[in-house]
């Protein structure tokens, strides 16, 4: 591969890294040709007309692309699936046609006069961009960006402000793509709007989609691979043995390229470098970094014996005051009130469809309560969105395990840990150890058993040292031995100073953990007290066996605790 094609390859890699920043958040954005054009033209004009030094004009290009990207990012945050793809594509085309109508920059006929750039500077810029992207993706922000890809609800439950993460990703990606545009302008010395059309957007998108959306290495391999394939196919005539016979294939290279893209999608739908592959490849790197990070982690002793509140004197942590909620006519919750004290563990039980999950979702802020109020440590949090509630100290898990398919065990815990900034927290290392997951720290959720996934989700919730954690039917789908280990873990939570609200319809599990029991039926509290007292209550017995009383069609349906296979949908 000649130097000239290698420079082109490096520029393509920079563009691919830019797009990786937005694709990793699951936003399939096709507006990159527009930002490429803005970066190219601003760099070219500031260089040729204003005679700015190269680094400054490249930065100007990036800044201009980022500024234009801001409104687009807010618009895009509202769009999903095909609407997002087409909306961003439209922005790219509008930018290209606008430039084509600007007399001052040579409109359709193009612009030249740049001072040019030598290959070494291109490589330096590329290395800087790569280092920046690597640092970003391994930082807390990078974790938050990845968490938004799979499951926005789970991300906000983990304290991630999903909308601002999406907007930030689009703006940063536009800036990096702007730099790539600047490099194109300086390297080819002549630019015209035709060079920034839809074909470029598609090609840059293919780098990440073929290479693998979830890993920076994927973007690299995709960009380098495709550019080198197209260049290599041109010289197919030079192949040692079969050179002469296939020489006629050279002009057909775009057909071969199309076929290769098709074959790759069949063979590796997730792309060449899946997150799994990237993780195994960078294991040594991560080990070194971990040793360095371990020193910086604030390690503080676990409060050995939290004042275990034998009686009711501990401070009230969470107050649920006359909360009501209805789903289209069906009153799921009516006037539910309960208080939770520091370090207490409560079991919330009720037959299927009694409103247990609705109460958890309302207290955790997944959807606002229609009636009543929720107070945390005396502070009103009824209106607070889910991610702010998590940061304030109300953590929760979901009925079917919802962890992040593309975050490793350690990253998930670190994400939860980050949500508790400003509070004394146990270090990630010690938490992994107490969860029994230290050995599995680099594993992805798909490689864990259901019990391990559940422990991971609970770990993520308590990593933020919240005041209260709401556990929604954690024991579903587990065998007895796994259930016992889970009970052991849940019992240890109050010792860390976090109150537990365990929601479950399995009585023996709930009574084993909950010191106090609250029974829900038809969305109302019908009994509270010790396990024995509650079981003696005839209304509870009747609500449970339910021959006469018809159980309502609960929104959760048959819960096998199995993580729903969430098919990617293009229309939502």
């Amino acid at each position: 591969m000649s130097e000239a094609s290698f420079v082109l390859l490096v520029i393509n890699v920079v563009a691919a890294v830019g797009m990786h920043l937005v694709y990793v958040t699951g936003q399939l954005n096709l507006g990159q040709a527009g930002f490429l054009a803005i970066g190219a033209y601003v760099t070219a004009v500031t260089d040729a007309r204003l005679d700015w030094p190269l680094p400054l004009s490249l930065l100007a290009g990036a800044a201009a692309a980022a500024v234009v990207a801001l409104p687009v990012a807010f618009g895009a945050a509202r769009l999903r699936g095909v609407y997002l793809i087409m909306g961003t594509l439209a922005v790219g085309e509008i930018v290209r046609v606008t430039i084509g109508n600007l007399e001052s920059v040579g409109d359709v006929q193009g612009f030249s006069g740049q001072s040019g750039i030598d290959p070494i500077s291109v490589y330096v810029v590329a290395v800087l961009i790569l280092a920046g992207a690597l640092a970003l993706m391994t930082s807390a922000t990078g974790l938050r960006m990845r968490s938004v890809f799979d499951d926005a609800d789970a991300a906000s439950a983990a304290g991630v402000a999903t909308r601002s993460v999406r907007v930030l990703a689009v703006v940063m990606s536009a800036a990096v793509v702007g730099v790539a545009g600047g490099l194109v302008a300086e390297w080819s010395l002549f630019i015209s709007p035709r060079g920034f059309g839809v074909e470029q957007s598609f090609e840059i998108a293919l780098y990440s989609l073929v290479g693998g959306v979830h890993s920076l290495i994927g973007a690299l391999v995709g960009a380098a691979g495709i550019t080198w394939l197209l260049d290599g196919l041109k010289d197919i005539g030079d192949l040692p043995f079969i050179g002469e016979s296939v020489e006629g294939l050279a002009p057909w290279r775009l057909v071969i390229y199309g076929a290769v893209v098709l074959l790759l999608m069949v063979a590796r739908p997730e792309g060449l470098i899946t997150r799994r592959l990237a993780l195994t490849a960078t294991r040594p790197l991560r080990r070194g970094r971990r040793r360095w990070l371990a020193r910086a982690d604030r390690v503080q002793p676990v409060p050995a014996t939290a004042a275990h509140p034998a009686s009711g004197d501990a401070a009230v942590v969470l107050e649920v005051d006359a909360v009501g909620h209805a789903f289209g006519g069906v009153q799921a919750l009516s006037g539910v009130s309960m208080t939770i004290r520091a370090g207490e563990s409560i079991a919330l039980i009720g037959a299927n469809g009694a409103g247990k999950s609705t109460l958890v979702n309302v207290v955790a802020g997944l959807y606002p309560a229609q009636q009543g109020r929720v107070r945390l440590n005396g502070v009103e949090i009824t209106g607070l969105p889910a991610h702010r509630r998590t940061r304030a100290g109300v953590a929760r898990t979901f009925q079917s395990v919802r962890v992040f398919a593309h975050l490793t065990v350690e990253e998930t815990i670190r994400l939860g840990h980050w949500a508790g900034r400003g509070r004394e927290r146990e270090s990630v290392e010690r938490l992994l150890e107490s969860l029994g997951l230290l050995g599995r720290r680099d594993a992805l959720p798909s490689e864990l058993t259901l019990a391990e996934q559940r422990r991971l989700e609970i770990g993520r919730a308590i990593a933020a040292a919240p005041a209260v954690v709401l556990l929604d039917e954690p024991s579903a789908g587990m065998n007895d031995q796994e259930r016992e280990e889970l009970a052991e873990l849940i019992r240890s939570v109050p010792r860390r100073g976090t109150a537990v609200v365990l929601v479950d319809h399995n009585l023996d599990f709930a009574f084993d953990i909950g010191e106090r029991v609250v029974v829900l039926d038809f969305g109302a509290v019908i009994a509270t007290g010790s396990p024995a007292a509650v079981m003696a209550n005839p209304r509870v017995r009747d609500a449970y066996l339910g021959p006469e009383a018809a159980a309502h069609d609960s929104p959760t349906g048959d819960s096998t605790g199995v993580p729903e296979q969430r098919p990617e949908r293009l229309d939502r």
Partner: protein
Amino acid sequence: MARRSALRRTYPLTILCAALALAASGCSGDDPSGSEVGPTSAGTEGEPISIGLVTDLSGRFVSFGKDIEAATNLAVERINADGGVNGSMLELVVEDTGGEPEQAVTAVRDLAEDGVFAISGPLSSGEAETVYAQAAQVMVPIMSGTANKDGITELGEGWTFLNQATNTALYTEALPAWMEEYGVSTAALVYDAEEPVSAGAAMGAIPAVAADVGLEIVNADSPITFTRGQTDFATTVQVIGETDADGLIIMSAPTEAGLIAAELARQGETRPIIGHPSQGSQSFFEGGGQEITDWMLPLIFDRDSTEPEVQEFVSAMNEVIAAPPLVAESANYYDSIFMLAEVMRDADINGSTPVEEARETIRAGLLDLSDFPGVTGTISFAGNAEATKTIHLVVVQNGEPTPL
């Protein structure tokens, strides 16, 4: 499910061996790349003189590119047939850019690295502008036979030439002849706002030349425009109908020219029209061209000229190319090779001449070449990087290009 997983296991293997095969070709990219057309006659001792050709064999201009490659090969074979240049055979190194400016930059830099003495091409104006801006850095004489944007050679600071009539040269001769032929004094300007060559001509050369020759462009401040890839011209032609002017100036690529011609005929437009040389292609004559009369085109090559060597060239080309008749511009590339050969013969350049010296001599030689008898008529640079070409004016009558 079983079938697909087996499928999935075998696919990565096939991808892997394909990639390995390409790896071999990729690394071997740095030695002289591209398909060489070696010397045909046996036993000459001298190092071969390598000439680069930058063309498009896979992109938007593949129909032009293939004919250009054929014409260039024909010239090289004929020169080698009668002894080559100063005893050295000519060796043509072809680079395919797919019509992309970025690829053209890479192609020119690779050819310079491989030590070619001169480069013929690139094909489109967009590519030519990008490449000419690089010429001063790679210091190789580059001569395009197709790009015709005015002032393009200034980018190359003396290293770049044009064996093609620029728009100004074309219309300085064509406009007066058109005005005289049809008694035109006012004209309406119509062009493709997305296509750089047409936009360049319509906003640059045409208004300038029109002012010199006293042709009034009625809609100079708000010309009628359309966009490349548009298929429906009903409204555009209707606006043309509403503009009162003696004649129409239509700047566009052949596809759009055909579409407008069909629509003009449909709406009963009979005013005389003058177009752009790039429209003079088979797809225009066979497509929309069938239905219009009085569409004048200033061409740089007349296929039907009675000159014996022109007829010989046309018949030789028709045997070689896939879809005769040939593209007019391929004649320029045929002449370019002969001109380079003559300059090298005069300056005693052969295969063993050091590359820098050869390139510098060829550059100087080309600059003062004059009255070169090519199949496209007499060509002379005479101190100007843009050659003066003989211009053949033809009028398309129902698809038949008849000389004026």
